[in-house]
């Protein structure tokens, strides 16, 4: 039995097959989402979405055209195909454009929670309520819920191309997230926590709610500090945010276009303490899939091995350009986009010490729990300057909370200055990091 997506893809391939000079690829997806948001133990919002669409990529004499549609009627699919073919007339030919051939087999991954459609709205509402109760009940100073939410998603993806790729998979996930405000007289501080899982039964609202509350309460009385240059520890989620802005530098496309600050560092040692991996088959990560956005087999790529920068991330075209294979790193933001190069599950291998041990090793420094303005990081030069909040450390102990400061530096120097990697890995989407101790960073304050 085939799905709507498979039928649409097959129809397009069949329509285009008489034109021998065309290479055609269809990327189709159907995504269903549910969300329930609670505030003060009342349901604020409930939301369900059902979206399907497909994008057709066409190669004609080495030029690429692309068109997408959400309408799967024969007329609309025909128009979409013709528009993509017409688009190929405007773009310039590129000798390395093309499509991948099929794989002999794809990894078997378990990404779909078959219980997801049996869980009632009532059960989901209950979880969101418990999440809020756990946070508000942690301390009487936790005064306001910005949002306490449960959400889940299911997705089906189908990729088919005229070289014989015809594959698909299903995945699902669920998420608890909570933003609260702790208040003491005129002082308001925010706290945030989340939990992402494949299986509904793995969600833990008590632990997640309390974590958000603990964070906010710990920030009460936050002060500014004078400008200084000190050792800094990144909390795992801050580390994960930094991995997010580091990722583009590993793209073979960025390197080729002179847009990567790592370009001259291949086969050199960055920092022997670091092993950095991109692994689409790593199931605990939310970006796991059997294949990438072109249908190339998903796999583990070790980008940095004990400090040695070994390889870039490739898709089909970048691989051909550098006479190597795709590394299975084609990604698309949605069916509306053409495949670019990107990470899947992208994480640092952990070290031996927990965060408390790292904190204990610092005589004067900062633990950063939160950053602001990460989208302004210059991923090409690697320069960053972002707002931050956290705790001042003196004599191996957290002394008082700090906010309204900025940390600045360069991403390459940041990697070079990592002195210790913690054991406490956390994932945010597909990015995973433990606590990181950086030897020295400029902190701008008063």
């Amino acid at each position, binding site marked *: 039995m085939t799905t709507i997506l498979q039928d649409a893809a097959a129809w397009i391939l069949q329509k285009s097959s008489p034109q021998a000079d065309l290479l055609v690829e269809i990327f189709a997806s159907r995504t269903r989402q549910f969300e329930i948001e609670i505030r003060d133990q009342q349901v604020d919002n409930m939301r369900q979405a059902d979206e399907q669409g497909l994008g057709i990529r066409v190669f004609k004499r080495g030029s690429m055209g692309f068109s997408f549609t959400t309408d799967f009627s024969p007329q609309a699919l025909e128009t979409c195909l013709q528009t993509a073919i017409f688009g190929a007339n405007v773009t310039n030919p590129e000798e390395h454009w093309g499509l991948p051939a099929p794989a002999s087999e794809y990894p078997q991954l378990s990404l779909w929670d078959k219980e997801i459609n049996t869980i009632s709205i009532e059960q989901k509402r209950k979880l969101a309520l418990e999440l809020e109760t756990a946070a508000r009940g942690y301390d009487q100073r936790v005064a306001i819920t910005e949002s306490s939410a449960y959400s889940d998603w299911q997705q089906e993806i189908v990729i088919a191309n005229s070289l014989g790729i015809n594959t698909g998979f299903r995945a699902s996930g669920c998420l608890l997230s909570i933003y609260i405000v702790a208040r003491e007289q005129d002082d308001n501080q925010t706290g945030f926590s989340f939990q992402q899982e494949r299986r509904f039964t793995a969600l833990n609202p008590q632990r997640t709610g309390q974590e958000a509350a603990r964070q906010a309460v710990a920030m009460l009385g936050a002060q500014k500090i004078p400008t200084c240059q000190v050792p800094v520890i990144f909390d795992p989620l801050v580390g994960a945010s930094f991995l997010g802005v580091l990722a583009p530098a590993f793209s073979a496309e960025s390197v080729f276009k*002179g847009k990567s600050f790592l370009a001259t560092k291949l086969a050199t040692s960055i920092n022997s303490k670091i092993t950095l991996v991109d692994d689409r088959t790593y199931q605990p990560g939310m970006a796991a899939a059997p294949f990438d956005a072109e249908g190339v087999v998903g796999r583990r790529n070790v980008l940095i091995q004990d400090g040695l920068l070994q390889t870039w991330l490739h898709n089909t075209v970048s691989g051909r350009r550098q006479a190597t294979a795709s590394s299975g790193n084609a990604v698309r933001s949605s069916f509306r986009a053409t495949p670019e190069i990107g990470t899947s599950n992208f994480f640092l291998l952990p070290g031996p010490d927990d965060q408390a041990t790292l904190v204990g090793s610092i005589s004067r420094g900062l633990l950063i729990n939160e950053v602001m303005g990460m989208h302004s990081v210059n991923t090409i030069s690697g320069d960053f300057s972002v707002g931050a909040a956290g705790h001042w450390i003196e004599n191996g102990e957290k002394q008082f909370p700090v906010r309204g400061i900025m940390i600045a530096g360069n991403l390459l120097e940041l990697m070079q200055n990592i002195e210790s990697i913690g054991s406490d890995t956390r994932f945010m989407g597909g990015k995973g990091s433990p606590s990181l101790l950086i030897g020295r960073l400029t902190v701008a304050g008063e």
Partner: protein
Amino acid sequence: MVQREDLEFCLHQTLMKGGDFADVYYEHRQGNMLVCERGQVERQLTGLEQGVGVRLVNGGTAAYAFSNNLSRTGMAETAAVVRETFNGRNRVELPPISLVPPRYQLTVEKRPDTVSLSQKSKLILLADTAAREIDSRIRQVTVSYADTIQKVMLLNSDGEWTEDERVRTRLAINVVAAEGSKIQTGYESLGGFGGFEIMESSARLVADTARNAARRALQMLTARSAPAGLMPVILAGEAGGTMIHEACGHGLEADHVEHGISVYGDMMEQMVASPLISVVDDATLAGRYGSYHFDDEGIHGQSTVLIEQGRLVGFLYDRMTARRAGRQSTGNGRRESYQHRPVPRMSNTFIRPGTDDPAAIIKDTRQGILVKRMGGGQVNTVTGDFVFEVAEAYLIENGEIGPAIKGATLTGNGPEVLKRVERVGNDLGFSIGTCGKEGQGVPVGDAQPTLYIREMVVGGVDAAAE
């Protein structure tokens, strides 16, 4: 395309078990994007998307369903999803539906669907050449052009039917300059509510925009590191309006106020800024990126004064926040697409120009930094802390513009920074952007005159500087 009768059917289905309010929002969006990289048009994307968003409000709860299945069966299913989330009451009779005409026209002269792909290609190639020609240290130029025609139709249980067509066109140029092992980037963008005429409004506009991006990248190669710490800051009018968008725009959205998560929440009628500062949000401005005829709940766009000579006088409301506050919506209920729920959003937000001469403001400043271009930013509305990036800036030394600096992001606290504005210029510079909130982005414009701010924290790397 879906017809009004189809939406009426959907609305009837939604209200079959009762409810306080319902609306059905249909969106049909077509867009084109062209990307020029390495001197040639590499990529072309065209897309068509349509879908419907259904909302049902009962008491304090709202339920939403979104789908792009637009058949009658699909509409009935989508309506059923929201209808079934509440325990039914009796069906609501709809009043007769009547069309609400717009109050003003945002004109479009050259619709993007009347301009050929090859004309658009020529434009971006022109931008590419202009940027590259400036200097041999320019290594990469990426020019991307995008146009959208978004048609929306909305019906609600008050009997209102509104239609809006938003046409937006933009161009963005990213330049990479390199010298030895140093790489730096420059960026410039141009766009608004309108068609291809935006790109042709003056013969040199596109070329000059591209050259600005290139010049910025080159300047960063030799710029010195920005200082770190507290110091006077002049934000030039041409720098764009990111500061006001972050410093108070989000904090004045009524949902943040209502939930107790805005630092401005309990400051109505109080002085929240210097008396030199007045802040307005205006969706009616011709040609501006954040403009529209109706918001995404069918309310007319309008001009709303938020801060009048330093005093907080207004918030930005959508239907639901207005209803709960006993006020009228200010026409700021916006959504990224049919897949998102409307929430209070900014349109075009700006600080009114004052009377000071911008050149005199610089001359009178002994030391500090001059920001000529801001990038994006972010804010924590609870504490009021915000950051924004600086794309082009210089040290000011004894009233003269000194060396260029790089690597600075500025941070401040909204009410504190606005109170520290000591001089306001008589100019006004707009920038365009996409504002993100709750996982959805909407096009916005923002603007400010040249401002002198007594002190802000500059997040440079150079901690030794004073």
